[in-house]
């Protein structure tokens, strides 16, 4: 059981109220949240310090224009924020930020994290086509009815980790029938409780892990199985890999938006990655022909070995892929297998070491000859 703040307003209004309270009372100096950019449904993450600008905040808007974890890492890469900032991010974004902090790419200092039980987000395509507003009622209806929201990202529909692990404050949305006029705000940490102290509302006790949450987790697990079966990653083999990644145009957009792919000087973007003429000569002699640019399969599997262990399954990679390669599903599947190997869940705990940076002296003898 944990402490719950109840506000008699819709979820969206309640979170806005909470943010306003935090900023007005001076408990935080800044708010990191999604904000409306125009009336076409375009939203972007913003760091807001004035109450006036907070009016356009849409903290629960079902869109992820960029992974918030990656953005928070960019904000704090060269030093932590100097004054308290509240960040409203989705569970996978928070997990991504934790992974980046572990990799010394950001700092948690001075942040208060608000997250929610997450129904997922729509692909960016829906937003850039200006169709997202039509989808909003469908989104909230499905959330209330405890159903998987249709048309959201495939990785969202099959996400089991929709309860934030390290948020100070969690907005309960999934399976909550009354989010149109009531909102339950779970205060998971002492820090969270301290920050909301003095706000108007009723304080009660509650359990975040409700029956609805358990049932939703099972639905998502089934959905995940269905998704994996559909794409049949384990049956790929060489042929499947070439067919799947043969479509890759080599834009490397997937790595640009990936929160875990943080290297500024990526080997696969570098000149060393390009072959010298004699390599082409050798390859052509042997193969009789070569795809240009080559190495799409090696780029993707290479990224899988580097990033898979920390993949939080946010789904941005597939979202931005102009060739519609189901990258996020492949990453989710491979991520699952390598994370299971080490009993590791990315972003669960900032103290948990990334498996490739630690070891046990007695393990994996089966991979030795």
């Amino acid at each position, binding site marked *: 059981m944990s402490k719950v703040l109840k506000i008699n307003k819709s979820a969206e209004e309640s979170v806005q109220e909470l943010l306003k309270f935090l900023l007005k009372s001076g408990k935080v100096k800044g708010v990191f949240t999604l904000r409306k950019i125009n009336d076409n449904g375009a939203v972007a993450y913003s760091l807001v310090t004035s109450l006036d600008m907070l009016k356009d905040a849409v903290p629960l808007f079902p869109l992820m224009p960029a992974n918030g974890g990656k953005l928070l890492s960019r904000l704090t890469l060269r030093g932590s924020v100097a004054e308290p900032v509240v960040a409203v991010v989705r569970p996978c974004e928070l997990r991504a930020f934790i992974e980046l902090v572990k990799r010394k790419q950001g700092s948690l200092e001075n942040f208060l994290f608000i997250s929610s039980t997450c129904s997922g987000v729509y692909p960016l395509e829906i937003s850039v086509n200006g169709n997202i507003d039509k989808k909003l009622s469908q989104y909230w209806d499905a959330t209330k009815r405890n159903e998987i929201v249709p048309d959201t990202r495939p990785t969202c529909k099959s996400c089991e980790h929709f309860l934030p692990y390290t948020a100070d404050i969690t907005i309960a949305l999934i399976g909550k029938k009354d989010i149109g006029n009531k909102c339950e705000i779970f205060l998971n940490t002492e820090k969270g409780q301290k920050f909301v102290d003095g706000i108007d509302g009723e304080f009660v006790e509650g359990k975040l892990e409700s029956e609805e949450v358990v049932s939703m987790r099972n639905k998502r697990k089934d959905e995940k199985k269905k998704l994996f079966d559909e794409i049949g*990653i*384990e*049956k*790929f*083999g*060489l042929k*499947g*890999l*070439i067919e799947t990644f*043969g479509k890759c145009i080599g834009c490397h957009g997937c790595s640009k938006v990936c929160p875990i792919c943080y290297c500024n000087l990526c*080997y696969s973007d570098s000149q060393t990655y390009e072959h010298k003429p004699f390599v082409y000569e050798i*390859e052509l002699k*042997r*193969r*009789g*022909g*070569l*795809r240009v640019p*080559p*190495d*799409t*399969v*090696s780029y993707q*599997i*290479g990224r*899988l*070995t*580097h990033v*898979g*262990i920390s993949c939080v399954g946010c789904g941005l990679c597939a979202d931005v892929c102009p060739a519609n390669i189901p990258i996020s599903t*492949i990453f989710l*599947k*491979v991520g699952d*297998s*390598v994370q299971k*190997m*080490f009993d590791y869940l990315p972003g669960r705990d900032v103290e948990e070491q990334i*498996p*490739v*940076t630690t*070891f*046990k*002296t007695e*393990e*994996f003898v089966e*991979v*030795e*000859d």
Partner: protein
Amino acid sequence: MKDEFAPKIVGFLCNWCTYAAADLAGTSKLKMPPSLAVIRVMCSSRVDPVLVLRAFLRGADGVLVAGCHPGDCHYEKGNYYARRRFALLKSVIETLGLDSERLQLSWIGASEGPRFQQVVTEFTDKIKKLGQNPMQKKTSL
């Protein structure tokens, strides 16, 4: 004789143990198949899975990563990291439905010339049975 398949294996050998073992096998005139193309690395943990992968996808019939026995690493714990990375790579490859039989991790100490001979001979035999790496003929990797 001319048509017999001669595997090409890329070997990432750690400077302190396995490379020394390879030297020892040579100076001891131990006979073994000439299948291994050696790349000397300072430690087996230097071998990024991507390097193994690139050799494999470019058509190496086998890839051997070899270093000091656990507990004997010149840098104390490099080979433990190497083992984790190798396990991770194997898991990635297998999840994608590829055969990881062509990749091998072996521990060969500096004084183990005969073991080096044995590992190279046995791995070469295994690869001979598996045949040519099918990646070699693919044109759209």
